[in-house]
């Protein structure tokens, strides 16, 4: 079946502009994660959604970052007033129910470049 999809695949924006990144998880997966990977770094956790529970936003680096999820489907990550340090690959992952032993399935990522 279809895996996790993300759009756009690449985004170039100017400093100060807002951007919106989209993630479509695997159908039926209730857990959804956003990660960020800056050049030469490992993946950093940003935010986690699980069903109707309040999201875990503990990884969001600043209040310019926000994310929403519609039910158990699409999620959007919004970055307001982008800065050059926001340049990174933004990865989305989903898993069936967020369990400890579950595999997280990753999307192809959105490569964001802030000029």
């Amino acid at each position, binding site marked *: 079946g279809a895996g996790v999809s993300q759009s756009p695949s690449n985004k170039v924006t100017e400093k100060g502009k807002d951007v919106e990144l989209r993630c479509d998880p695997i159908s039926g997966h209730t857990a959804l994660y956003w*990660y960020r990977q800056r050049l030469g770094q490992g993946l950093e956790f940003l935010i986690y959604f*699980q069903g109707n529970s309040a999201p*875990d936003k503990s990884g969001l680096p600043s209040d310019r970052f926000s994310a929403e999820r519609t039910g158990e489907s699409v999620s959007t990550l919004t970055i307001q007033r982008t800065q050059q340090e926001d340049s990174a690959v933004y990865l989305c992952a989903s898993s069936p129910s*967020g369990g400890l*032993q579950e595999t997280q399935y990753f999307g192809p990522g959105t490569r964001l470049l802030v000029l």
Partner: protein
Amino acid sequence: AQRVTQPEKLLSVFKGAPVELKCNYSYSGSPELFWYVQYSRQRLQLLLRHISRESIKGFTADLNKGETSFHLKKPFAQEEDSAMYYCAIKRAGSNYKLTFGKGTLLTVNP
């Protein structure tokens, strides 16, 4: 907070040689450990996880709680093993988010 250390950014071996990618973690509880791999132009995917005690593509990884290590090993490397490898940890009570190491780029030369 948990932390994952992959001491080698780059590792280069010849085809047929043994390979070991090191991973050390800091967490006092009972974590779940994973190795993820990213081949060129492909998405990040799970290679193996310690709970399964399986061998995938000839790779194995043993959890050593005493040394807090989860090194990835393969006795005979193949060119198609060239990729970026990430060690990751999950722990209960953390909403099960993965904490990743910075990765090791493995190159297997012919």
